[in-house]
Each structure stands twice: as C-alpha cells, then as structure tokens.
C-alpha cells in the first residue's frame, strides 16, 4: 500500500487487512484522506479499541518504518525533538585546545553533535516513515506547542542550524484518550478520527483475525456477549483488546460454548474493576426480565 498514491479507500482496507487490522469504512476513509491531504490523523476513543494499533498497521502495510514518541507529563524538547550531545562537544573542545573560537563554534554545532529524538528523526529520515505520537493528551499544555511546527509544516527549527524541512513526508498518527482538551491549534492541523467500539460483525472478524484457531461460532458468541456487556453502564466497558484476551482465555480453557458459569468465572479478563465484575456476575445470574 503506497500511502501517497491511494486512489480508493478500499485499498486502505485491503492494505490494513494484510497487517491483520480490520478497518471499518470510516477508518479507511480517514486514512485515505490523510494520505491525499498529507495531514496528520488525531485518533480519539476509549482505551483498547486499536488507536495505537492503527499506526502500527499502517506502517506494516505500507512497508514504512514506525517511529514512536510516547508522550508523558514532563516530556520536553530535548526528549521529543533534539538535543546537543554536550559530552561529545566537551571532548571536542578539549581535543581542539588552542584553536580559534569562531572555528570551533561552527564545528561543534554541526550535525555530528546533534542527537535526533523521534520528531526530528521522522523529519530527517530519507525514506518516508510513519510517526506515532502516542497519548498526546498527556503532554502539558505548554509543551504541546512543540508539535505544531512539525505537524503543520513538517519542519523543525534549530537555532544553530536553521530550519530542517522534511525530505519525505511522514504519515503522522496522534492518539488521545481525551483526558484533557487539546489546543485548537493542534486540532486544526489534524484530521479527527473517533474510533469507538466496533459493531458485532466487525468485532467477530477482528477476533477471527487476531486469535488463531478460533472457531466462527465461538467468535460470534463472544462478540455477542461483549456487545451485551457493553450495553450495561459500567465504569470501564470491555474494549477490543480485552475481548481478544478473553477469546484467547476461552480457547486456552478449551471452552467451545461459554455458558453462564464460564462467563462469570472469567469475567476478570474482560472487566478491570471489582465493582463492574460483581455487577455483571449478579446480572448474568439473574433471570431475564
């Protein structure tokens, strides 16, 4: 799949499928548009629905290298963009004792002493890459601005070297769990993609693709159960990653057709809060109304 020469969203579906990622139409259409418009994608949605996985699959399907920037509070320029290798600079200074300062200065602020961090690396890479900026909502508001130049113009300004422009455009995916509102400036530069829980049919297909050896009947049943559990108001409804774990668990246990008892016994794989587990257990035990 060549991201710059997409002609149809269906190509994206097929491409991602080869990387075992089952994209629905909407996801494929946004990826397609991002390729055509050369814009980053900002994905949002509950944890575990495949936001990060999408970036990975796009990289695999297009044969590009994946460069990942994991965001966290306190992440700064020197970890995200670039840093000067000051030990090396120091060594050079000591080795060059006696040389003219102007000459030395020009020398030690050169490419050789630059440590590229993910953003700069993605920009400088000669062959196009996929850049994943994970959990961008964890960045502090002040540091968010750091991304704007990279995402808007695909360039990085380094005072000593000038502006470095991308040799090849990276395909950028940002993920966010919406713990805080991102700045307008950032959102404006991105295409927005909300990934929600999949439909029952798609979930079944995802399970089939991700869990080898799973029978259709069981996959179907798991998808139905999970859809039904999501319908209850829970603190943390099960996500796709959890239903995959659950399918693996049932497979390992050799369960062909989960009944109430098996389900109750394995709920902890699906739900991550004791309150939710208790609640579902009693719900499932109760007769239908």
């Amino acid at each position: 799949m060549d991201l710059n020469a997409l002609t149809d969203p269906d190509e994206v579906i097929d491409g991602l499928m080869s990387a075992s990622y089952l994209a629905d139409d909407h996801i494929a259409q946004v990826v397609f548009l991002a390729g055509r418009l050369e814009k980053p994608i900002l994905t949002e949605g509950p944890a575990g629905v495949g936001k990060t996985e999408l970036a990975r699959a796009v990289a695999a399907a297009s044969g590009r290298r994946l460069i990942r920037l994991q965001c966290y509070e306190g992440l700064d320029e020197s970890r995200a963009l670039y840093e000067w290798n000051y030990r090396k600079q120091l060594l050079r200074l000591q080795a060059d004792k006696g040389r003219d300062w102007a000459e030395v200065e020009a020398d030690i602020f050169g490419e050789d002493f630059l440590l590229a961090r993910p953003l700069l690396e993605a920009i400088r890479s000669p062959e196009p890459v996929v850049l994943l900026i994970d959990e961008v909502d964890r960045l502090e508001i002040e540091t968010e601005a750091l991304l704007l130049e990279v995402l808007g113009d695909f360039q990085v300004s380094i005072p000593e070297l000038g502006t470095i422009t991308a040799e090849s455009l990276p395909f950028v995916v940002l993920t966010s769990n919406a713990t805080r509102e991102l700045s307008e400036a950032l959102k404006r530069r991105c295409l927005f993609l909300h990934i929600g829980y999949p439909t029952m049919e798609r979930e079944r297909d995802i399970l089939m693709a991700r869990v080898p050896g799973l029978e259709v009947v069981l996959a179907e049943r798991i998808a139905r159960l999970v859809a039904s559990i999501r319908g209850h108001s829970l603190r943390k409804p099960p996500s796709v990653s959890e239903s995959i774990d659950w399918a693996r668990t049932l497979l390992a246990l050799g369960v062909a057709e989960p009944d109430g008892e098996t389900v109750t016994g394995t709920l902890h794989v699906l739900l991550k809060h004791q309150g939710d587990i208790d609640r579902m257990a009693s719900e499932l035990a109760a007769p239908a109304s």
Partner: protein
Amino acid sequence: MPRFLTGFVDELRQSGVPVSMVEAIDAGRALEHVDLGSRSMVKAALAATMVKNSRHLAAFEAAFEIYFSLLPPPDGTVEAKLRVSSDLAALGMAGAGGEADLDALVEALFLALRDRDSGRIEAAIRRAVTMLAGMEPGRPVGGTYYMYRVLRGLGLEGLRDRLLEEMGAATGSFDERLVLDEIDRRLEDLRAEVRAEIRRRLVADRGPEQVARTLRRPPVEEVDLVTATREDLAAIEAVVHPLTRRLATRLARQRRPGRQGRLDFRRTMRRSLSTGGVPADPRFRRPRPEKPEIVVLADISGSVATFARFTMQLVFAVQSQLRRVRSFAFIDGIDEVTGFFGPGSDFGDAMRRIGSEAAIVWMDGHSDYGHAFGAFIDRYQGVVGPRTTVIVAGDARTNYHDPNQEALGRIAADARALYWLNPEAKRYWDTGDSVMGVYSKVCDEVHEVRNLRQLSRFVEKVALPSTRPVRHSV
C-alpha cells in the same frame, strides 16, 4: 456544493460545533478528493475536517442527516438496489392501506427483523411511514409526532415478545438474557431508522434549514441539569467523568515540583563539581506541596433531585481521583456519605444506599438548610480546616425554616474558601423561600450552575490557585 456547504457549516455552528474558517476550507479541500456520490465518504471527509471533539459527533451526525439526506445512496449497496424496486413490490403488498395491510406489514417487519435483513427492514419502514405517519406536506408538525404515530402503529412491544418467543425459546436464563439484549439492540436500530426516514421526508418537504431549526437540541454542555431528561442525563454523566479527571490532573499538577522554587545552593554546588566548579546547572528547592482538601455538602432533597444526583456523581468521580475528599448529604438532617463512594463502588448502588442507610432525614424530609448546617457543626468538628475548600450544592430553598446564617458563617470562617453552587436560575434567587441572599453574605463565591458549561468554568476556577481567593481570618 459550496453554497450547500456554507449552510451546513452554519447549522453546525448553531448546534454548538465550533467550526473555524480553516476547518471549513479544509472540508472543501477534502471534498475534492472524494467521490461526491458516496454518502459515507462525504460524511467521513466532513467529519474528519470539521469535528474535532467526540462530544460534538452527535450534533454533527444529526446535522449531516438533515443536510445530506437527499444525496443519492451509492450504487451497488442494498439501499440503492431497494430504491430501484419499489417498497410495495419488495414486500409483495398493494392497496391503499387498511387493517389487513397493516397486519401484513407488521408480519413482514417481524420476519425481516428476525432474519436481520436490513434491506427488507428498510423497505418495511418506508412503507410504514407512508401508511402510519399521516404526513401532510407543509404541515408544521415536528418529527416526534410522526415518530410516535408510526411506532404506536407498529406495536413494538408485541414485536419484541414475538421475537423473544421465536429466538429465545428452549434456552436457559443466561442465553435468554443475551437474546433479549440482542432484540433490544435491533429494535433500537429500528427506531433510529424510522426517525431517519421521517427526517428525510421532512427535509424533502420543507428544506434542510427549517427542519434543522425545529430538530436542533442544545449541546450537552447547555442542557439544564434540573429539567434534564433521562437521555440527557446519560450524556451528561458520560461527560462528567473526564471533567473530574481534568480537575484531578490540574490539582495534581499543582503539586508537582516546578522550577519556581528557591535556588538550592548546596545541590547546585555539588552539581558544579562535574563542570569544574562552574555552577552551570542550577538546582531549585521544591516548593511545598499543596494537598487539596475538599468537603462537599450536597442537598439531595426532592426539589433538586436531578441536580443532586449529578452533584453526587461529581463527588463520586472526584473522590475516585483524589483521596482527601469528604462528602456529606443532607435534607433536613445531615450525614457523611464519603464511605459509600469508596474505590470500586458502583454509583447507582451508592445512591440507593444513601437513600436507605444514611441519616439525612431528621424530621419531615423537607430541606432545612439551617438545621443541616447546625448539625454539621455539632457532629463534624474539625472536618473543615484552614486548607479545606468547602463546596455547598443546593437551591437554598429552606421551606421557611430559620436559615441559620451563623452556622454557615462558622463553616466558612474555618475553611480556606466556601463556594455555593446553585442549580436555579439567578433571577429566581431570593424569591419565595429561597434565602440565597442571606447565605451569599458568608460565602466566598456563589455560582449559578445550571449546566455543564457553567460547571466546568467553576471546576477550572477551583483548580487554579492563582484565581482562588485566600481569606485571612475575619
């Protein structure tokens, strides 16, 4: 297309989706890369460029349905094929309507639902709307009225029972439950499709602008908390949680060491050893961490029941993020309910337990703020200290009891700050038995909080110490 797009952008802005100029232009650019005949592709292009917040998706969805409902469905889909063959032919029915026809229609719908045949379901819906809604061109009736007529005519309850009988017979309670969930999902889809069909016809009749105007609903942030419907409440509750996460992260950030501290001379000198005695890397002392302490007093009497539920939801969420939160519920008596919201507890359960276990009713179950505050001072000495922010939530309608301003004054004097959140519109304050004016004299700030927007504004304010008043002893 451009003219159509401007109308659509206007509609989005009207319904609370902030679409900037740049985003509208982006949308236009995106459409150049898209097959305009494909509804879903047009929708994806518009959504990706103009909606930047999942909270706005519902509003977008509704506006899109109205403005683009007349776009032809793409060739080759079930939808398209069906439009070619007429509704009646698809169902094998004829005639102008009548008892027998209706029965046949319901039967056809039942079979289609059972087989999950979306094409036949859709044909049946279109037939049903024609037959049952009784739509007349130009008649200024809202979609809900037609919707009601169609659904009543179809008799959804009966359909549900029959589906259950057909699909869920001879299975245990566990499977029956699954089947039931499944059936409810299908019927929910059915309702949504009936709504969409009616909307399509309204648009064809009156044009998108007018339909959009009648169907527009306030965005979640502006729904009145006191008169919210059940669906509104569900939407609100979904938003409250991230809001409190935000409050918690804000508060936590304040506690993290910043660079604002004083220079730490010893550590700077020790550091300088590695640079040959040059203090190149100054170190700073960490500012003293500030531990936020919050005490919430919430009126949970009937008159503010929805608001109370929502306040408690807020407390519940805040409490799961911060440890130093204590909550108290009152009507005319007061009781601590902090324990009910412990880790892992369920919100609904907690509310039920508060109703049944907590001693919040002292005499007759009508709010008596004066007595509640008095009782709070007597029973919970030392809960409020100089670092505590107290938040009172209620409408200050004290049923003509003594407001006991002095008691609230004492709580305020002990606290770092006292805020009052009132779910009533400001113009009703101090009318009838409302004693807001009396209480506001001893509060640091009084806020009208009738919707989420006002609430988030308040949350930001409390979370930011720079804007928070710090009182010195009066």
